[in-house]
């Protein structure tokens, strides 16, 4: 049976002065992912190995690791795709290490929170007690849908060379989400996000390396989002470009004219 060599970063604060590499021999099974290998190590060889995982299907973003010198989701990386029998696994670069393969993702979440990653509505009464749905065309949805696939795995910040030199740089994840919400026709908080992104460690530090888009496991293309954010910010300052049409509230069925003949309601309507 073919065997793989897993070279895994180990580090226990308080015991180890610095991270070191430990090797494990793992039997290859068909369809095996890097996460399967780590689970095998933990269950059969060394149960002190620490790592994050949850969904094991590439949707939660928990198992982000530096695998063979590239940030990847361990559950989403078949070992056969790596093309080698030696698998090097380290914790994500550009993040402090908590233990072994577990990185401290607090910087990611703090930066994410700073750009107000939620719909900001100027109609507070309507937002708190909605009277109807907000209508959005398919074109308006497509303008930001791709960027909404982000699972906050942190691989983009790990890959970003600007984050490596300036840890305070907001990073592709938060800047991408700043654009995602600013482009949403249900949102009126673009100016607040522009102000946040327009700082010394903000959007203008991005030089379009593109490593974030290459690393993203969900096809978000944060590099594109950042360039679109730059354009939106410049257009806002220069007061050029088409103004965003805010999403209207859908009429209630009682107010709108039915397109087809429908029978009368048999229950009382509000």
């Amino acid at each position, binding site marked *: 049976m073919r065997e793989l060599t897993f070279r895994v970063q180990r580090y226990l604060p308080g015991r180890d002065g610095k991270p070191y590499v430990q090797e494990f021999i793992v039997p290859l099974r068909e369809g095996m992912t890097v996460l399967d290998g780590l689970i095998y190590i933990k269950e059969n060889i060394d149960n002190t190995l620490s790592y994050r995982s949850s969904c094991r299907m590439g949707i939660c973003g928990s198992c982000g690791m530096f695998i063979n010198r590239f940030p990847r989701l361990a559950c989403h990386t078949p070992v056969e795709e790596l093309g080698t029998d030696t698998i090097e696994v380290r914790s994500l670069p550009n993040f402090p290490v908590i233990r072994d393969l577990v990185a401290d993702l607090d910087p990611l979440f703090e930066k994410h929170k700073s750009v107000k990653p939620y719909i900001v509505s100027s109609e507070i009464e309507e937002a708190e007690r909605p009277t109807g749905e907000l209508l959005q065309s398919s074109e308006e949805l497509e303008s930001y849908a791709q960027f909404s696939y982000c699972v906050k795995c942190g691989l983009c910040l790990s890959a970003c060379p600007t984050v490596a030199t300036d840890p305070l740089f907001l990073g592709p994840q938060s800047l991408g989400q700043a654009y995602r919400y600013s482009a949403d026709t249900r949102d009126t908080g673009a100016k607040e996000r522009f102000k946040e992104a327009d700082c010394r460690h903000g959007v*203008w530090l991005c030089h379009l390396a593109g490593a974030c888009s290459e690393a993203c496991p969900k096809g978000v293309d944060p590099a594109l989002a950042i360039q679109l954010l730059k354009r939106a910010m410049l257009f806002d*300052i220069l007061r050029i470009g088409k103004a965003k049409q805010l999403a209207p509230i859908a009429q209630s069925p009682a107010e709108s004219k039915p397109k087809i003949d429908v029978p009368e309601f048999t229950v009382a309507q509000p």
Partner: protein
Amino acid sequence: MRESHLKILQYATGVGLFFLVGTHLTVSLLIGGEPTSWESVSGRAASAAWLTVYILLLMFGLYHGIHGLRTVILELPIPKPAARVMDGALVVIGIAIFSYAAYIPISAF
């Protein structure tokens, strides 16, 4: 000024430099005559249009270059107070160089 405003000026001076340097090179090298001859230089020095071109070239080039240097330095993880001092120093250096360099063509006019 916000970083976006500085960036807009960077882009604008870049475009401006394209035309100003192009004009300077075209007239200096492509139109007949020896551009460094006494007659040619003193002729340009006495021209209001050329004075304007040179002052704008100086202004745009200084801003574009100094802001570019600032961008490179800010890539480094320097503390906020040091960054502020650097900003102030670059402004002072830029104004000093502009004042000295602009004095020459203005005094020759």
